């Protein structure tokens, strides 16, 4: 790539698969599970986290030499909280219905472990441009899992994608429903998300046996 050196491209691409924040680093699970019943909410959540993580990484990286290490957690929390307030206000202004669906989970981006984890592990030790790329990469890795979960839960649970009835109309019995297909109500309830993540982890580790852990 002309724009990015090989190392910098690695920062963006590694978290997408073999160093994924959700399935490998086990960070930021809370929000990944609660809001993925619909694809749209998953995408909005992924974009919000991307904004907060990339901007926060840049801010923390710029301030890394002047933050006293004893109070760094509080400084980090203040930076994240400010960015999250911006996201929340923007969502309320331009997508009110969606911000109702996400409810407290926008606020919970503050305590999303991915964000604190990347601040601690990366932004405090690296320059702003590399931190920005790291933020983009990790939030993409997070977003990809969210979109996969949201895709399957919405498709199998409600037979829609982004609100479009891709499998036909369940009431008028058109499309797939005319053959006796039924929506799987199980996918809508919250615990289904955990099982979908479990299956994603299963698939990923079967393809790459070096990731298998001890019991």
């Amino acid at each position: 790539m002309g724009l990015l050196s090989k190392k910098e491209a690695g920062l963006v691409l590694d978290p997408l698969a073999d160093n994924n924040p959700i399935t490998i680093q086990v960070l930021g699970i809370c929000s990944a599970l609660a809001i993925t019943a619909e694809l749209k909410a998953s995408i909005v959540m992924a974009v919000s986290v991307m904004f907060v993580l990339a901007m926060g990484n840049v801010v923390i990286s710029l301030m890394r030499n002047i933050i006293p290490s004893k109070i760094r957690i509080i400084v980090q929390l203040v930076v994240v909280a400010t960015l999250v307030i911006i996201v929340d206000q923007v969502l309320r202004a331009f997508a009110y219905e969606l911000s109702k669906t996400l409810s407290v989970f926008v606020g919970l981006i503050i305590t999303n472990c991915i964000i604190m984890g990347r601040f601690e592990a990366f932004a405090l030790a690296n320059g702003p441009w590399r931190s920005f790329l790291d933020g983009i990469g990790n939030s993409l890795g997070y977003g990809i899992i969210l979109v996969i979960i949201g895709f399957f839960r919405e498709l199998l649970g409600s037979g829609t994608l982004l609100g479009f009835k891709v499998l036909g109309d369940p009431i008028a019995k058109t499309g797939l429903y005319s053959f006796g297909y039924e929506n799987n109500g199980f996918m809508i309830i919250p615990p289904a998300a955990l099982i979908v993540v479990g299956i994603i982890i299963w698939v990923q580790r079967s393809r790459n046996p070096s990731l298998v852990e001890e019991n």
Partner: protein
Amino acid sequence: MLEHIELFFRSIFIDNMVFAVFLGMCSYLAVSKKVATAVGLGAAVIFVLAVTVPLNWLLDQYLLRDGALVWLGPEYADYNLSFLSFILFIATIATMVQLVEIVVEKFSPSLYNQLGIFLPLIAVNCAILGGSLFMQSRDIQTLGLAFNYGISSGIGWFLAILAIAAIREKIRYSNVPAPLRGLGITFIITGLMGIGFQSFGGMLTGGDEAPAEEETTTVQKIEKEEGEINKEIDENEVSYNDILNK
């Protein structure tokens, strides 16, 4: 009294922090390999929730919500500072965690040795901030209820991490498919436990007709058991009515 009992059981079983809203999953997954450490973290979560939820309730009631500043004078009635709630809540939590750590270290070194290593982890545990945010969005009415909500949702989280830690200690002797070992199987078990916990949903609401009857029966039971307290409350209500009538 009844609403306290209802809130207590509702936040432990029906709206369980882990199984219904997935809060605090990160530490739930990371610290659940042994029962002993799980108990330590669970106790610390109950403790911090019991302190921060009432505190944030006071902040919300007298500083943040629409018209909350009216106690300063009528000209402040139009202020709505609720957009500041994230930053104030998290600041309260971070400060309280630090404070609790110092106090516990000073007065009870043995408790500090058990809880101490977990306390810094707790500042960024979503269950704690989630407790305060749900307290705000569910519109909890009194300080007592907020305290109750903090403690009971902490107990719910404690139960969840205790259960999964016990299961994970046992599962070490089972032959799990290699790619599912560790994280994968923990997710699936949690999902199954979550489905189990869904069945508690019928505990308070019941069917369409049932809830009214159920509520009255519980009311009667409680009245029998704690008749004196209810009499006192009745007397108070009577006196209030008298005052109102006058």
